[in-house]
Structure formats: C-alpha cells, structure tokens
C-alpha cells in the first residue's frame, strides 16, 4: 500500500499547479468565458507543451502516461485551478483515437498540433445503445447524419470524433470542419451542438462500442478528480471565510452549527478523494465501469452537498459573480451533469 504520488506524477502535479496559479488567474478566466471558443488557444498551447495530453495516453500508444493516476493527478489540479480549457474533450478523444490505432492523429493531438472533441450523446440518447446518428459508406468516404448534443470542447476544435450507428454496432468517425452551434457553459468553458447533415467523415473504427465506453469512463474518472480539486478549494475557502467574517462581535467560525457543517463537508471531501483513488486504480481492469460509476455517484451526491453548503455558509458573498467561490461551486454542481449524473451512475452500479 502506498498513497503517495510517484516522483514523476508529483512533478507533473506541481508543474500544472504552478502554471495555473501563475498563468491562469481569475481575470484570465473571466476573459474567456463570454466569447467563442470559450477558452484561450494560447494557454491551451502552453498546457499541451507541458505534456498534459501526452500524459493521458499510454506509452505504447504514443503518449507517456495513460494510467488512472496520470489522469487524476492532472485533473485534480485543473479542478483546483478552475481551468476552463477543454481538457476533458482532449482526454476522451485522444484515448479513443489511440484505442482505434490512429497513431498519426494521436501524435498530432499529443503535440498540440490539433485539438479535437468527442461527440457521443444526442438529445434523446444518453447511452450508446440509444444513438441514432447514422453512418453510411458512399464510395471511399463515409457520410454521417444526425445530431450530437452538448459536445464538450467543440467550439474552435479542429475536428470531432463522432460515434455513429452502422448496420451492426457503433463506429467512430473523424469529422473535420464540422457544422456546429457553439455556446458557453454556465460553469465555464464551451460546448456545442454538432449538426451532421450528410457530413463527410473518415472512419477510425467500425467496431468502436468498447473504445467509446472506455473513453467515457476515462472522462468520468477525470471529472471525479477535477471535482476533488474543486472541493478542496471550496472547503478551504469556507474555513477561511468563517474565520475572517465576524457577526454579533465574533468570528462566525465560532458558531458550532457552522463548524459542524463545515466538518461534514471536509469528511465528504476525504471520502470523494478515496473513492476517486479507488476508481483510478481500477481503470483498465474489468471492474472499471463499476468503480468509476461508484465514484461519480458519490462525487455527485457529495458535490451537491459541498457546493450548496459552501454558498450557504458564505451568505450573500457566495452568491456573487465576483467571488471566485461561486464559480467553483457552480463547476462542482455542473460536473454532476456531465457524462451521466448520480442517478445514472447509481443505476449502473445497481445493474453491475
């Protein structure tokens, strides 16, 4: 048993943390929230140069990491820094591309030459079995028809990997220059609707069901780790605020009811950290789906509690745009909406 990060991962963690602290402050973040592509291509390039995307992909597939702990180490820091860069999309698409054996594409992604997104879900399709987007072969290329909804990191992407139905099973296709409707997300970052109206596509795999599910699981794990980073900031902010704010002539940290509620936040945060470590250790194993679903269920439940308590214990100030804590709280809440919420995960656990 060893719960310490390896030296390499500790370095990576420190690097990302230092970069975000120095180069991605809240003013930078506010500056990219409103206008497409809802992130900073310049910062994105710098983060790729730090090796983040390579760390998502195993060595034998052209990266230099790829384990569960590589993913959680990085995403915890992205959470701590509340970074709106489209790393989730990068993680999922790079892993899917790698699993399809698309070595050239992976290289472009790892070096930051290209940025792409992964489009799976549709307005009425929140699982692979329900996907209706269709792929048809037309001569030497493929044609896709359908609509993908809330595709993370779509705005400004160089391309998008699309899950589409074949006669049998699901295929994974690369669409370059996609037709999109972009928007900002309420918790930062951008997403979009992908309109596939006889879109020309390159096929990466004609049997990609497992590959896509595996990429989604990596994404879910990443979201859990991001949430843990966010939680740590929120708990610390709450403690600091209660110590500093006075009411009725004394710091409100001296009120026992508020103390106990903060303690419960801290305990849940530790539990979330634990289940995320557990899930990370299972990535790539047969039990991956079950443990990642467990983790994301707990993250969803505890995240709602921590975000709501953080706002409540801050009082009015926690309600304001100007206070960074409110943005951390929004992000934590909305993580539950990504890649299947706590209900969906609980159903997966119950079915496992």
């Amino acid at each position, binding site marked *: 048993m060893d719960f310490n990060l390896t030296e390499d991962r500790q370095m990576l963690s420190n690097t990302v943390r230092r970069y975000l602290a120095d180069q991605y402050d809240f003013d930078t973040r506010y500056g990219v929230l409103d206008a497409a592509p809802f992130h900073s291509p310049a910062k994105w390039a710098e983060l790729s140069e730090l090796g983040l995307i390579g760390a998502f992909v195993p060595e034998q597939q052209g990266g230099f990491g790829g384990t569960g702990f590589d993913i959680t180490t990085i995403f915890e820091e992205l959470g701590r820094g509340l970074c709106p860069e489209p790393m989730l999309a990068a993680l999922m698409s790079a892993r899917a591309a790698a699993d399809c054996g698309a070595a050239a594409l992976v290289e472009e992604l790892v070096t930051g030459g290209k940025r792409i997104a992964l489009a799976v879900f549709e307005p009425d399709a929140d*699982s692979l*079995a329900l996907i209706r987007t269709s792929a048809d072969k037309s001569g030497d290329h493929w044609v896709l028809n359908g609509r993908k909804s809330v595709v993370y990191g779509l705005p400004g992407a160089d391309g998008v990997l699309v899950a589409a139905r074949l006669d049998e099973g699901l295929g994974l296709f690369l669409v370059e220059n996609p037709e999109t409707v972009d*928007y900002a997300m309420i918790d930062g970052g951008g997403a979009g609707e992908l309109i596939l109206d006889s879109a020309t596509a390159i096929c990466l795999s004609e049997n990609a069901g497992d590959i896509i599910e595996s990429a989604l699981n990596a994404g879910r794990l990443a979201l859990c780790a991001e949430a843990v980073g966010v939680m740590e900031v929120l708990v610390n902010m709450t403690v600091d605020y209660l110590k500093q704010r006075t009411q*009725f002539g004394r710091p409100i940290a001296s009120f026992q*009811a508020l103390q106990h509620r903060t303690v419960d936040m801290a305990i849940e945060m530790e539990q979330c950290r634990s289940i995320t470590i557990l899930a990370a250790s299972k990535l790539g194993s047969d039990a991956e789906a079950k443990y990642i679903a467990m983790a994301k269920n707990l993250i969803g439940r505890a995240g709602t509690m921590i975000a709501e308590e953080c706002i409540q214990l801050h009082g*009015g100030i926690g309600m*304001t745009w100007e206070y960074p804590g409110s943005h951390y709280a929004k992000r934590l809440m*909305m993580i539950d909406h990504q890649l299947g*919420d706590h209900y969906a995960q609980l159903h997966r656990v119950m079915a496992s």
Partner: protein
Amino acid sequence: MDLSFTPEEEAFRAEVRAFLSENLSPELVRKGRNSESLTKEEMEGWHARLNARGWLAVTWPTEYGGPGWGAVERHIFDEECALANAPRIVPFGLNMLGPVLIKFGTNKQRAEILPRILDGSDWWCQGYSEPGAGSDLASLKTRAVRDGGDYVINGQKTWTTLGQHANKIFCLVRTSTEGKPQEGISFVLVDMDAPGVELRPIKLLEGGHEVNEVFFTDVRVPVENLVGEENKGWTIAKYLLTHERTNIAGVGFSTRDLEKLKDLSQMLVRAGRPLAQDPLFAAEMAEVEIDLEALRVTNLRMLSAAKEGAASGTQSSMLKIKGTVIRQRVLSLTRTALGAAAAPFPVEDLPENAVTVPEDARRAAASYFNNRKLSIFGGSNEIQRNIIAKDLFGG
C-alpha cells in the same frame, strides 16, 4: 377541523383568477414561466393594473388605499398569482416602507409618500445590509451626522435589490455611537439622485443583475426625512422583521415549479424512457410533493392561527426554512432533470437550434443558482433557526 375555504373565499379566488386572466399579458406569463427578468416598465405596468383594481397595497388599511383583506384573502391572492406566473410585487415601497410609515410616520409623511408609492411615482429600495453587517444589523456603520437642518450621510449599503430602478431609498443609519449598538440607529429616507449617492451593480453567480451596492459620500438629507424618533430606528427594523410577513412559505411558487417539473419529467427522455419513469427520480419528486402538501397545510394552520391573533415569529421562521428548502429542492430536481442540456449558458442571443429542451426549462440551472439566495437573503435559514431555538429553549 375543516380544511376547506368558505364559499366567500372561493368566490374571491374566482375573482382573482378572472382578474389575472384578463390582465396578465402573454409576454408576462411567458417571462414568468421561463424565469426571465422583467423590465422596469413591465413591473410598473403590472403594479398599475393592480392599483387600478385596488389590489396593490395588500397590507395597508383601507383608509390608505389597501383592499381590506385578511390573511386568508392575501394567501389566496398570492397563491393564484404564483400559479398564474404573475410578476411578484416589488415589496420595498408597498410591503415595507408603507406599513412603517403607517405605524411610525408623521401625517405629512403619510400624505406625501403613500400616494406616490401607489401610483408608481416613486420606486423605493432598501438600504439595510452593509458589507460587515448582514444578519447582524446592529453592527451597521453608515453614519448620519446632524448638520443644521440636515443629516450628512457617509457609508455603504449592499444587497440593495432592484436599486437600479429606484429613485428613493430607505436606510438604517447610525446617528449615535453611544449605548448598546442597537440604540444609535435611525431610519431615514434618501433621494437616489441626491449628490453623493452612487449605485454599483452586483452581478450574481448565475450572471443576473438584481442587487446593488449603494455608496453615500457626504449625502445631505433634510431632518424631516427621519421616520420615527432619532436613535429609535431599531424599533422600526424589528417591527419590519417580526411584522407578519406575507407569503413567506412560497407555497404557490413551489406548486407552480413542481408542476413544471412534473410536466418536464414526462417530456424528457432518460435511458430511453420518460424521466418520470425512472423510479429514483420519481421517488424524489414524490417526496418533495409530499413535503409540499404538508407545508401547504402548515401554512394554512399558521395563517389560521394568525387570523386568531396567535401567529408567532417561530411560525414564520418555520415557514421560511421549510418553504425555501422545498422550493430549492424542486429547482434542484429541475436542473438535474435536464442532464447535460442544463449546462448551456442561457444568454439571450443563443441561436434557436442550440436549444434541445423546452423553452421554459432553458433557465433551469440559472434559476437554481439564483434561488440559492432564498435561504440566505431576508434572514438566512441559520438566523431563522436561531429565532426558533430562542423560542424553544427560552432564550
């Protein structure tokens, strides 16, 4: 025991419904359903229609233009307004300053100010909270120093709701630093366009602009703008806090929001079936519906006790706590119901084809975040628990 309304009360309800269906424009209803902000003109227009009917100043005695309703009529009116998605009445002039002037004001103040509240000439806002004094009003620091026939005011107020539309503000200010902190506070009326008054918007976490900071720099107001006695403003503040608060449980709003959620859960597809058929989600909806049914009766019980003169601060604190918990849970479930589609930022110019959810659900996440305020503003739920505890444990 009889939970039904009298025939007179039912007739009154029908009258309110008829009024609402005649007077509420489709645009107002649409905005209400969609949790969109109203313009100043829309709010003023709605006030004018209510005033024309004599239903605007619901808490005022008839001699000042109130409708002469009891607690039950007010409840019915509030409930029907909520169910019809009517705008909320802006309460600062009508439900706060009005009753204060009626109880503490001079005849001159009443004669001059009340009619202008009714006809919309003045839009009042509230200057209570300060950056260091939220729940703990007694520690407020904004000073008003007597100088000849004027007070000279310096300081800062915050959380001033809809201050951006107001031409007047009533404030609690410190006129003395002697004695207990509560003792040197006065209640004064200030023109927002007086020199030295500056308003700055506060953007809320979901992006909306409802509240403001108001800064006072050497603002002069005539001494006659004092309401009640100098240094006795605390009495007025307490009166307003313990003054029977109308519609504090918000049962009508929660009912309307829950109906919307239930409709939505039939429309949205999750795991290939309507969300309403997911037993876990359906169970949560059913639980909150049960809690709301109970609250409806708790509200009526307390209303009925109030009619008999027995309402207490504890009761309205209980209604506030449970009412906000239930409403926030409904809004949280509504946000959750949308799944991934809750995330798009609901800006006005989002293209139509970006939306994959019903129009009235597009602001679900924003509305959820915005309404975290319910358990914070107007006396946080922690303060309400303190009030009840004082009653339970005898101080």
